[in-house]
Structure formats: C-alpha cells, structure tokens
C-alpha cells in the first residue's frame, strides 16, 4: 500500500512540531525518517496514526484521502504501529493484548481466546518467533514485548507498519534481528516507516531516507550517503563529532566500588557484582543499552536504592548505608537521567530549584528559616554564569526549554564543593547548542580535578567524553576499556562480549 502525507502541519500552542511535511512511502519499501530528538518525527507519526489531529494537510493511502479521527480509523485503513513505549497492558497475556480492540467473540460478547491464541501462534511461526500466547506481558523481556507489538499490528492486517525508535531498548544483536524482520516484512509487500536518530541503522536497512529538522523536511538521502553527510543534514551544518579536550591527567584513586550488588524487591539482580576504580580528574563513561543496570548503579551510589551490598568508598569513606542527604553531604554532585522527573520541581522557581538539595542548612537556611535574599543573589549569579535563558529567577522551571532546565540542574550541582560528579544521560533530548554547553562543563569539571562518571546510552557521547569506558550488560561490567576503543568493539561489548572475546 502506498502512503502519502501532504503538507502535514501540527502545532502545540506556539510550537510548530510539524511544518508542512510531505512524505511518500511506496509499497514494499523501508522508508527511514531520520531526525534529532525533538525534530518532530514522533508527532508526525502520531498524526498518521490518528492519535493527534493535524492542523493542516492530508493523509492518503493508495491515493485516497483519509480522515482519521482516532487510531481505530488508522488501523482499519491498514496502518500499524510499533510504539517507542510499548502499548501493551502488562497484566494481560500476549493473546489478550493481541486481540484487544479487535476481539473475535462468540455469541454474547464472550471472548474467543482460542482464536486469539491461534493467531499469535500462526504469526509467530511465520517469523520464527517463540512466544507463549498465555504469558503475561510483564514477565517477558523487552525484545519479546516488541515482537508482541509486531504481532499485534500484523494480526490487524497492517499494510503500512511504523516503527517508532524501535532500537532504543534493544541490544545490537536484537537490533540486527529486528532489521531482518523488517526486511522480511518488506519483501512480503508491507510498506515500512522506520523512525530513528541512529545513522548506522538507517544506512543498513533503509531503501529511502527522509531527514527532518525542527519540524520540517530538510532533504532526502540515499542509503549510500556517509555518516557525516547524514549527520550534517540532520543537525543543519557540518558536524564535528568530537569534544575539544586535553588528555586526562588522572590523580589519586577517588571512588572505589567493590562487588556492588543491587536487587529489586523481587530479589532480581539489577546490578551484579560491579567493581571499578575512578581517579581524580578523569571521566569514566558507563556505556550500555538502556536498562542494563546503569540507572540502578548511579542510584546505588546516591543512596536511592535500598537493597545494596558491597562497598562504595569515596576518598576512603563508605557511602553504602548513607541516606541521599549523607551522600550529597559527602560531596557528590548528581545529574539524574530524567531531569523533569528526578532533577527539578517544575512548579518551583529557578531560584528554589537551585537550593533544592541544600534545603537543610547553610547557606540558604539559617535557624530553620529560608534566607531569601542570599538565595536571590546566588540565583541571579548562576543564571548569568550558566546562561539560563529565562525572564528571571522567579520563572517556574517547568516553563523552560529542556536545555535551560538542564543548565539549572548543572548550575545547582556544580556550585557545591564536589568530590565526585555523576551525570546520567546529561544531554538526552537537548538541542545541539545545549549539548555542547553541557559537554564543555563536564570536561571543565574533570579538568578541575573532580572525578566524573558519565552514564550514556549514546555511543557518540561516550566516545566524545570518556577517558575510560565501562560497558554494562545485564547488570555486570563487561569490561573497562580506554576512551579510544573502536565503536565496533564497544558495540559487541554492549551485547555482552568481553573485550577478550571481541579480540579473539
């Protein structure tokens, strides 16, 4: 089926998320939609899928104009979608999820579970999946959940299949398998829209590439284009993929982690016997696919995990067993990976957010009372120093852009006397200018002699910042390698191979 988008425009208030976007996807092709975070790709696909109503423009299927008012219409027209955040109900079985909204019933509205099971089995067989139709979704690994999403779309006879950032949660191996599935689908005649910001994947699988920037189509490219060409299209100028930094001059051991184990309330191991040493004045990047224990590792250091064993010693002081307050007081600065959720209180002002982790004592609290004048002075200074673009220090943080929000977090964390700095996904979702600013600050912190941990799922960021790289897989550190280790090696390590295995 041929899909055509004509002049799609979608506004959110003053923000134009999609600006007259045109796109044609021919039957049996894999069409890549490439763009930075926030370029408007997901908005476009949500318009296509009927979740959002476009303000202007048309959607055509086989040259017939469609009028979708909801996802139901899009599905009936043959559009299927594999969402970035899976649209599966965790407490339902695979069969129930697949049939939901498209139930086959016996008289009286009685569910025909047998038919649904059969459908799951039939589609699984076609693609060589091994899926138990009666398994609960919440018990399945992420990769399998994604396959359930695919089965769900195919069970509704989708002719156009949209994959929205499908590889974010997959290991390189699982990514390869997904690519194979996409090719098989294409060869069977399905039109595929593949949304991503990862250049390598695009070049590997795409038949055609459309690049989107700031809500507009900025060009088409062929799969033979180089990384640099695609990247410059995507960000709008020639991009230098490195950060300006001098070689590290590491000092003494600062942070020593030994046999660190974190379990969740079910006894599942989240971090499994991790050991590493971090020296003053170096950046250790922790790489890995999302969900391999990086989050829990940083949370364990911050005193935010409760089932922690082993040892975390900062300058000889044990951190395990301390409250988060105690860890902060030991001189640890922390940029959490989800700044709106864990880093900032959106309804509070910039000034208030700048004192968020110093609400118990000097300099902003004396005898239990806030020192508002001191805080205002401090905030004004930091807003200037970190170039936070806002009307004033009383602006609510929730109204700032992502980049400015992250600057507020950085300003807060870097304005304390630090003995360790941890930045988790410090540039996720930021615009290019802010990314540059954040990276510069991280390197400056290192150069001031502070040991730094950067957790990132973006290989580019890891390679750009790291003096050393620790790769995590399934809660373990697969290996710690120098900062100039080739990407191919890092990629294999992210799939669980040790450096020795890679070399062999």
């Amino acid at each position, binding site marked *: 089926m041929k899909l055509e988008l004509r002049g799609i425009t979608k506004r959110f208030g003053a923000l134009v998320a999609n600006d007259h976007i045109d796109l044609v996807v021919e039957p049996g092709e894999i069409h890549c939609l490439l763009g930075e975070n926030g370029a408007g790709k997901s908005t476009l696909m949500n318009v296509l899928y009927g979740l959002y109503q476009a303000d202007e423009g048309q959607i055509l299927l086989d040259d017939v104009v469609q009028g979708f008012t909801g*996802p139901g219409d899009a*599905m009936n027209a043959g559009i299927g979608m594999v969402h970035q955040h899976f*649209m599966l109900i965790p407490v*339902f079985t695979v069969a129930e999820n697949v049939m*939901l909204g498209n139930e086959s019933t016996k008289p009286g509205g009685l569910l025909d579970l047998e038919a649904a099971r059969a459908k799951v089995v039939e589609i699984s067989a076609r693609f060589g999946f091994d899926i138990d139709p009666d398994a609960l979704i919440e018990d399945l690994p*992420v990769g399998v959940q994604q396959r359930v999403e695919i089965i769900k779309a195919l069970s509704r006879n989708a002719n156009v299949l949209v994959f929205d950032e499908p590889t974010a*949660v997959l290991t390189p191996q699982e990514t390869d398998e997904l690519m194979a599935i996409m090719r098989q689908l294409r060869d069977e005649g399905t039109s595929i829209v593949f949304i991503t910001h990862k250049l390598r994947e695009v070049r590997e699988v795409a038949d055609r590439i459309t690049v989107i920037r700031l809500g507009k189509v900025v060009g088409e490219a062929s799969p033979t284009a180089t990384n640099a060409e695609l990247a410059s299209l995507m960000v709008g100028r020639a991009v230098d993929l490195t950060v300006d930094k001098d070689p590290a001059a590491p000092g003494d051991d600062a942070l020593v982690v030994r046999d660190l184990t974190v379990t969740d*309330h079910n006894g599942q191991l989240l971090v499994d016997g991790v050991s590493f040493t971090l020296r003053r004045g170096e950046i250790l990047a922790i790489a890995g696919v999302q969900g391999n224990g990086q989050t829990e590792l940083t949370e364990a250091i911050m005193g935010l995990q409760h089932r922690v064993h082993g040892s975390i010693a900062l300058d000889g002081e044990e951190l395990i067993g301390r409250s988060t307050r105690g860890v902060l007081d030991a001189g640890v600065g922390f940029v959490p990976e989800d700044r709106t959720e864990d880093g900032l209180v959106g309804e509070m002002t910039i000034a208030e957010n700048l004192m968020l982790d110093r609400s118990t004592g000097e300099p902003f609290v004396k005898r239990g009372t806030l020192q508002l004048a001191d805080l205002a002075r401090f905030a004004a200074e930091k807003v200037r120093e970190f170039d936070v673009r806002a009307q004033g220090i009383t602006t609510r943080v929730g109204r700032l852009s992502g980049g400015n929000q992250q600057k507020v977090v950085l300003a807060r964390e870097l304005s304390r006397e630090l003995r360790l700095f941890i930045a988790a996904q410090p540039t996720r979702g930021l615009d290019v200018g802010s990314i540059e600013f954040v990276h510069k600050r991280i390197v400056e912190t290192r150069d001031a002699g502070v040991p730094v941990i950067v957790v990132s799922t973006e290989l580019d960021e890891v390679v750009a910042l790291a003096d050393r790289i620790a790769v995590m897989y399934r809660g373990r550190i697969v290996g710690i390698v120098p900062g100039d280790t080739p990407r191919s090696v890092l990629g294999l390590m992210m799939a669980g191979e040790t450096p020795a295995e890679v070399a062999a």
Partner: protein
Amino acid sequence: MTAAPATTASAATTPGGASPIVVRSWKAPIAFAIFTVIAILLFFIVGRPDLDGGNPTTIYRLSEARDAIQLPPLTLGLAETTIVVVILMVAATIGAFLLARAAVRVPLWLTTIFAVLFLVGFLTWAAAGATVPMIGLLAGALTVSTPLIFGSLGGVISERVGVVNIAIEGQLLGGAFMAAMLGTLTGSPYVGLLGAMVAGALVSFVLAAFAIKYFVDQVIVGVVLNVLVLGLTSFLYSTVMVPNAETFNSPEKFERIAIPLLSEIPVLGPILFRQTVIVYLMYLAIFLVWFGLFKTRWGLRLRSVGEHPTAADTVGINVRATRFWNVLLAGAIVGGGGAFFTLAAVGSFGKDMTNGAGFIALAAVIFGRWDPIRATLAALLFGFATNLQSTLSIVGSPVPSEFMLMLPYVVTIVAVAGFVGVSRPPAASGKPYMKA
C-alpha cells in the same frame, strides 16, 4: 525512582544462571502471631469471669422452627473449643513462619483457615453460656451485606475502568432517596428500584463529567459529591418528605420470597433463598460483573482502559467514552443497592440513613483487591461483623459493641498497609486521561 519501567529493567538485567536473592515477607506470620496473642489474651487471660463456674457452653442453633428439615443444635464447650482453636492457631502461625523463612508466600487458604479458626474461637468465647441462632446470624449478615455488595461491585467496575469512586456513599444515599420517593409516588417498589438506579447513575454522571471532561481530581469530586447528595437529600427530606410523608415517603417494601425447594436446603436454604428480590438481583449482579469483567469483550476493554489507557487508545478503544459509560453503569448498580435501605430494610427514607455504608463498601473494594468475587466476600465479612455485633449485644457479649463495629475499618487499614498479601490497584485508576 524513575528507572526504566520495572518490566524493562528486570527483564533486561536478569543475569544468566545467577540465582535471584530470596525475599522473605514476614508480614503474614507477624499478623498471624498478633491474632494468636489476641486470642490467647481474650480466651484465657480475660476469659469469661462474668460467667460463674464450670465450663460454659455455646449452643449453635442450625435450624429455624419453620424449616422442614431440622438439624440438631451444636454445642461447644468453652474450654475445649478455645484450647483446640488456639493450638491450631499456634500451629498455623508456626507454619506461616516456616513458609516465610523458606521465602514462600503464605497461601490464601491458610489465611482463610486461620480466620475461620479465630472466628469460631471468638464466637464461642463471646457467646459462651448463650445460644447463637446461626441461621438468623448468617441470614441477617447477608441482608446487612446487600448494599455493601452492590456498592463494592460498582466500586470495582469504576476503579477497574480507571475512575476512583469515593462517591459510593452518595450513590447509595441518592438511590435510597429516589427509591423511597418514586416507590411511594408510583406505589411500585420495582419503579422505586429503577429510580434508585437512575439516581445512582446521575451521581456517577457528575463524577464522570468532572473527572473525565474537566480532569478534576477524582477523589475531590467523590468527596464533594457525598456532601452534595447528603445536603440535597436532607434538604428535600425536610422540605418535601416530612410535610407530606404519605405522598412521598411511605413506599411499599419488597416482600421476602422463599424460593421453592432451594429454600428447604438445610442451613443454606433459609440463609440464601428466603430473601427479597433485591438480594436475588444481587446474586445475579455478582455473577454478571465477574463474568463480564473477565470473560467478555466488554470486560477486556474496560480493564485495558483502567490499566493502560494510552495502549487502549492506540488499538482504537475510545477511552473517555468507555470510562464515562462504565462509571454510569457502576453508579446505577450502587444506586440499586441504595434502594435496599428504603425498600427492603426500613420502609422510609431518613436523613443520612446510609450512615457510612458506602465507605465500608469502598473498604471492601480495596480489601477485595478490585476483584468482584473477593470484594463480595469482603463485604460479606464486614456485614457479618456488623450483624454479629447486634446478635452478640442481644445475648450479652463481653466485647463492647463499638469494637465490633470498628472491625471492618481496622481490617481495611491492615489490608492497605500491606499486611495481607500485596494489593495492586488498576494501574491507571484515579489518573485522568489527557491527550493533545
């Protein structure tokens, strides 16, 4: 913390081969131990000093005079019963501790047996020296439970679809009022019952409109609706019903109907099958809600909306409409239960006559873990406690009636504090669904 969704994290990080570290939950054994200690204190330390000498017995009457088949009464001696019960309770507690140490969750059947043991011991102790009319006690408990069960069924539906229903009390009260009003005006209790359902649905309509359309916090709307319904019905009661009670507030009550054959089954017959139409409707409602929720398309969609509305939306289910109509349905069911007060129990409306039944029903929803059958059982337990209290106050119980009346509330706190299993509400319950 905002880790990746739990499923993601745990699935991706299960290290191959490593055995998971075992988690032991000591909550159940500790709860058992506490109840065992209470039992020992009551039965042996407090005892029954008011009964002088010998070994008093408790007589359980198992048949009523009009029953065709008469069962002999059961006589339990206080000393031997309590000793046996406590020994078994101790055994169960030890068993629970052993299970917990082996990291095995204490099974529901053990908890049930434990609860029954405690109840038998307690009843024998409390009613020692007297006769307990078991049929009357249980049939009465069922009657008292009726509005609670309707209320909790409505609560289950509403919460399962994602709207917290604190307004059960208001729906019951509105239903009771309308049943009395329409029942009197038309002279037909059936019309009254229908009116009660409409009244409950109306209250639900306001809840749904504010919660779903205006995204007002559902708990706030619920709380306010209770006040509004109380105010409205009290106001209308004073201005309309009191001056003209004959015209507006003297409905014909439902008669008790004995179902042929079934009502002659020993013990069960008189309890279950000599009831009013409302109770028979309740049996039907319990079955239909359970069947509907778990076996039909309606239920699958309803539950999906309450668990993950965005996912439901992406497969073409209209989240808002699903919520709206099912909240209305829930209100109608609860409202129908409200008719019980005026058309089965009292025979006329009175100010604030539901007197907190809606909150007990809410407790049953939670204690029953959002499951219609369990919620029904919880409502029965609460109804039993209430009726036991009135039965015991007749035979002269050593326990102050207030403490018996407190029981449902204490039990619910214990439940929500997680001492009895893990309760997991529908994931999206109480959360408004907004989209661009």
